[in-house]
């Protein structure tokens, strides 16, 4: 059985923000999700204040004010760039075969007793693939930890939760049965949606939002499938009918994509997409795109 290494950055989004804000290196900071809705990353200091992962932002606003927590809206462009740098550095590091540093944990080096202790400390809801509902279901059966799940009766698990949960139990028993996908299979559906920044009353705003998301989704599909869009069908007839038609129209779409890539997203839009952006997400405290935008480079004196 092969060994798998999991590489993870501590509080990744917060850490990325701290690169350009060393003044916050020991401050409680949080990063918010789309729409500034929920907390998706917390520094250790913010964790110590009791702020939970996924906490809804407006609920913690009083605490944020009292404790001086610094809040960031998600700066996805920055995080993606930093993540790519981490991958690149890691590849370089591994290639040079440096000795192991602290901060690595080898599960395979543990004895059976040690593994049991570790698994007993992991709540069942923390396991990948066990969401809130499944976690509640398992706990009803008396399964509260990863250890308990590992040792659960497989036929019983399979009958109550299905084959996917059975595979999870087997993996906990170190039986490899979930294949690593080297190349993700072509997506059957593309999800491109956001919740709205404010309540929308006007149907035109809704139309505009949908037109915008369709464009974004189409770009994603074209990048994967080349130029043919035929597999996806719109239920309704779009006013600009050619978006979902066959390859004949695809050179036009390819040009549209190229223009938007070169001059910036949204340079050319579908006519339904007016650009009023009343529906676009709140991102009131976003840091500059330090590494991806010439106009937002950090400044030194």
């Amino acid at each position: 059985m092969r060994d798998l290494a999991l590489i993870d950055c501590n509080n990744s989004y917060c850490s990325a923000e701290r690169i350009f804000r060393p003044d916050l290196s020991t401050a409680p900071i949080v990063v918010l999700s789309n729409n500034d809705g929920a907390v998706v990353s917390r520094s250790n200091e913010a964790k110590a204040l009791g702020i939970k992962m996924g906490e809804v932002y407006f609920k913690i606003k009083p605490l944020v004010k009292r404790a001086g927590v610094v809040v960031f809206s998600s700066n996805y462009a920055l995080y993606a760039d930093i993540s790519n740098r981490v991958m690149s550095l890691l590849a370089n590091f591994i290639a040079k075969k440096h000795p192991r540093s602290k901060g690595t944990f080898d599960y395979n080096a543990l004895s059976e007793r040690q593994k049991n202790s570790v698994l007993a400390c992991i709540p069942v809801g923390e396991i990948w693939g066990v969401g809130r509902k499944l976690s509640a279901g398992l706990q009803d059966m008396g399964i509260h930890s990863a250890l308990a799940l590992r040792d659960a009766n497989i036929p019983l698990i399979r009958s109550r939760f299905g084959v996917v949960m059975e595979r999870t139990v087997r993996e906990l028993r170190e039986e490899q049965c979930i294949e690593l996908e080297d190349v993700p299979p072509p997506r059957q559906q593309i999800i491109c949606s956001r919740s709205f920044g404010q309540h929308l009353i006007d149907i035109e705003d809704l139309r505009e939002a949908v037109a915008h998301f369709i464009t974004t989704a189409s770009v994603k599909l074209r990048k994967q499938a080349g130029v043919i869009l035929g597999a996806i069908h719109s239920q309704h007839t779009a006013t600009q009918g050619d978006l979902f038609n066959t390859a004949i129209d695809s050179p036009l779409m390819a040009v549209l994509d190229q223009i938007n890539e070169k001059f910036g997203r949204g340079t050319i839009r579908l006519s339904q997409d007016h650009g009023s952006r009343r529906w676009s997400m709140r991102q009131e405290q976003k840091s500059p795109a330090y590494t991806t935008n010439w106009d937002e480079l950090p400044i030194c004196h």
Partner: protein
Amino acid sequence: MNSPRPLSPLLAPTLLAASSIPAGFPSPCTDHAVEAIDLNDYLYLNKASTYLFRVSGDSMIGTSIHDGDTLIVDRAVAPLHGHIVVASVDGDWTVKRLDLKNKPIRLLPENERFKPIEFKDDQELTIFGVVTWNLHRLMRT
């Protein structure tokens, strides 16, 4: 004869031959062709530890760093005495020459109108990285 039809863009050739098919003798260049200079490689712009900063002010004018210039800063270079570095001072980034040989440690400007920045014993000096290149634009568009 039929009137000529426009060539469909889908059929347009996407690959240009690297050299023409010889009708006479082959060009002696073909065996020696090399890739053109790539500025990204030369300036290490794609290095994972390389970042860009914009300069404000003329505290380093003596070393030809001007207001509005763009600095290439490498976090993987160990800062040594005499290096020009970008450092954090009072919550702002500053570009200065690093003086590690004297006590206390100082950040030196290259402009008479500016004073050196001193770091006393208990003060922490945070260096973002070492400046490897300065990009100074000559022709304004």
